Structure formats: C-alpha cells, structure tokens
C-alpha cells in the first residue's frame, strides 16, 4: 500500500515538476482552443451542406454524409497517425503545407489539430443536425414563403434557433475534444501526457501522470456538471410549454 502512494502520490516529484507539467498542459489547452474553434465552424458547414436541397447538390450531400459516417467510424488515434505518417511524404503538396510551421507551432501541433478537426467536425455536424431538425418545420415554411432562399432562411432563421437547442450535447463534444488532445502525444507533441511519461521514465514514478489527470479534472469535471445543469434547464423549458405549439 505504501508503494502505491509512493508510485502515484509522491508530492515531492509533483512539486519539482509542477511548472513543467502545467506548461505542457497549456499546450493541451492551446490545441483544444484552435481545434475547437475550427471544428465548430467546419461542423456547421458540413451540417448545412448536408441538408441543402436541390438535385444538383446531390453528389455534394452524398459526400458530406459519407464523410460524417466515415470520420466517426475510424478511431481518432489512427487518423492522427495516418496524417502525420503519410502527409510529409506526399511531395506534390508544397513543403510549407505538408510540414507546417505556422504561428510558431510545428508540424505535430498542426497534424494534431487537423486530426481533431476532421473527426470532431463530423461529430459536431451531427449535433448541429439534431438542433436544426428540432426547429419546427413551420419556420422554414414561413421564411420560404416570404421569399427567402434556403440559405438565407438557414442563416437568419434556422441556425440561430438551432444553436440554442444544442449547448448540452455540444459541450459534451468539447469536453471530449479536450481530453482527446492527449492523443497528439503519440506524434511527439510536447503536451502534458508526453511530458508526464518522460518524467515517469526519468524518475521511475507515475506521480506526474496523476498531476496531469488532476489538471484535466479541474477543467472537465465542472464542465460535465454544467452539461447536466443545461440539460435539466432545457427539460424544464419544454415542460413549461413556453410556446403555442398546437399539433
């Protein structure tokens, strides 16, 4: 039992490496922010394309559905490894894009962001879709009969209402995204998991990992609680029956 505590809760080691691990954790947060913002936008684009009507757009809609299905079916880790393992070799892409070094962040960061955006964009598209489908059909009818095009109706009427219905599931996706930033460690990006494992190898002690877990806990636990609160509030709204919605 003593060994257990020594292995996992050696506060000296935690103290010595605290700054190091915290700084690495900021890298997780950074990847999270960049990937989250891009994925939120990308997911919305996918969701809108997916349900824009018109015969001519059928191939595009089909591609979007296929993309969403495939990217939710392949594990994120594999996607990240595929990107980082293959893209540098695709020589017809110019080197600046192939091996990015943008804004002071080198390639593992951007491969990680790419993987996260591709996969989470797909999940978020489905969340948006649920929100869009939850908007009463009469809204689209009214907008269209006033002369708005499909896209105009989406922009002014449907999407603004859809996003008010999805904070809970979207927040879930974001929490999941934050945790999945740890996967970028496999392509040698210096985030907190990687750093903790190095400390593990150096000091033969897992306390740094516990410290990392603690950092995640501090952020994700309140996040999960917030989701619960949002869900409860939404239920109350529905049962209160705010709107006149006669069947």
């Amino acid at each position, binding site marked *: 039992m003593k060994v257990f505590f020594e292995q996992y809760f050696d506060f000296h080691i935690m103290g010595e490496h605290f700054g190091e691990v915290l700084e690495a954790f900021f890298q997780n947060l950074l990847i999270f922010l960049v990937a989250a913002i891009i994925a939120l936008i990308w997911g919305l684009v996918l969701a809108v394309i997916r349900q824009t009507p018109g*015969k001519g757009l059928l191939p595009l809609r089909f591609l979007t559905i296929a993309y969403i299905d495939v990217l939710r079916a392949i594990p994120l880790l594999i996607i990240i490894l595929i990107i980082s393992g293959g893209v540098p070799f695709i020589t017809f892409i110019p080197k600046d894009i192939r091996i990015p070094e943008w804004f002071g962040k080198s390639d593992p960061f951007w491969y990680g962001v790419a993987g996260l955006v591709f996969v989470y964009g797909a999940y978020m598209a489905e969340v948006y879709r649920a929100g869009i489908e939850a908007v*009463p059909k*009469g*809204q689209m*009818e*009214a*907008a*269209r*009969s*006033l*002369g*708005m095009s499909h896209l*105009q109706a989406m922009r*002014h*009427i449907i999407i*603004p*209402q859809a996003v*008010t219905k999805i904070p809970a599931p979207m927040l879930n996706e974001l929490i999941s995204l934050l945790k999945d930033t740890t996967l970028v460690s496999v392509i040698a990006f210096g985030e907190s998991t990687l750093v903790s494992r190095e400390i593990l190898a150096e000091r033969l002690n897992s306390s740094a990992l516990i410290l990392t877990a603690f950092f995640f806990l501090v952020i994700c636990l309140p996040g999960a609680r917030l989701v619960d609160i949002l869900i409860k509030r939404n239920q109350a709204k529905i049962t209160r029956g*705010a*709107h*006149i*919605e*006669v069947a």
Partner: protein
Amino acid sequence: MAEPQLRLKNVHKRFGKLEVLKGVDLDVDKGEVICILGPSGSGKSTLLRCVNLLAPPEEGEIFLEGQDICKGPGSGTGESSWNLDFVRQRVGMVFQQFNLFPHKTALENVTLAPVTVLGKSKSEAEEKGRALLERVGLGNRLGQYPETLSGGQQQRVAIARALAMEPHVMLFDEVTSALDPELVKEVLDTMRELAEEGMTMLVVTHEIGFAREVGDQVVFMDGGVVVEQGDPKSVLDNPREERTQKFLGLVLER
C-alpha cells in the same frame, strides 16, 4: 372580362403514393376574396401550398398574372430560378401556427424579409414595418418578442409580416383555428379590412360567418376536388351537392 389574376387548371398533387389533389380548377379575379371550406384531408391547405410553390404540383398549370409558375424550378423542371422569386414575392401566406420567428421582435419579424430578399435599407423597411404594425393595431408592440404576445396579436404580426413584401395575393391557411375564441375576432377584422382595401385573398377557414360576409366566392372541396363553388349565399344557404349539404349541416349544427 380581364384575365383572372390567378388561374388553376387541372392541378394534381401527390405525396408519395397518396394523391391529395385530383384535378382542381379555380379562377380568381383581382380583388376577389375566395373562401375555401371542406373537411380535413380534402386538400385545402395543400392547394394553398401549391399556389406559393411550397408544395409544387406534379401535374396541371397555375397561372399567376399570366405567367405559368409551374414551369420554374419549384416544379422540378430545372429551369432558371426566376419563377420561384416571382411567386414568393407576389404571394404572401399566413399560417395556422403563426410561425413567427421567436428570436426576433415583432418589428424585426416584419422587416427581415424586405431587407434580405428585396434589399431594402433597414430604415426604409422599419418605416414601412411600423406603419403596417400600426395598421393591424400593434403599433405599440414593435419591440416585443412573440412569446409575450397573445395568439391573436401574433397572428396579426404574421399578417403584417406577409404584407411587408407587398404581395398581390394573400393566402390564409386556417389562421384562426388555433386561437382562443375571444381572439378570433381581432384577426378576422384585420382580414376584413384587408379585403375592403382590395387585396386578392384565398382563405381556407371554418369561419362560415366570415365567408358569408366577406367572401366573394365560396369554394367547397372534398377528396381532392372542388365539389361546388359560387357566391356565398348560394353555396352556404342553398348548396346543390349532397356532400356540401352534409358538411354544412355538420358545421352549422355546432
């Protein structure tokens, strides 16, 4: 007589396997108020949605001010899009469920389409919107959100909203059916004023009184076809067809 403003010829509409409209003919002159009655499932609402191409017909022709609107992309023939705009900017619709935009104020509901579709400036649209809302008696509620308005008030905003696009024809789809009885009158009054100003109106309704007093023609539909039509007095007081009689008997007994 001049060409009717709206002419429907042999209109058929199918939803999947179910044929809802089985060949409807109708002529509407400018300024006429046509009241459409009939049991549920007779195709009344579908007919309205054909006219503004929300549910374009598979067969038949619809002429609006001389143009065959079924030859646009709404009918699936794949030609250029001007017919859809042509229709939607001349035909306004008011729904049973109001369908106001809940995230916009009354004034914003009214000004949104003129700004985004017609390209009017915000101030121009607001000026017009204010006037319209006053006209329907809601000049003091410009900044309120739909959820703070009563059903009757919401429906009047919906009428103002449709009028903001300066339509030539207005479609009313059972607009009082979802209202509490005491709120019905204010909406019907607004519609009456509109009729007196000369608006061409197609009104699907159960309000027999309104049909009698305001309607120029009454059309009775059942099973996807027009069973009987004529001026209100003849149809409502002396229906020729048995189906009409049955329906009216049922309705008037209430």
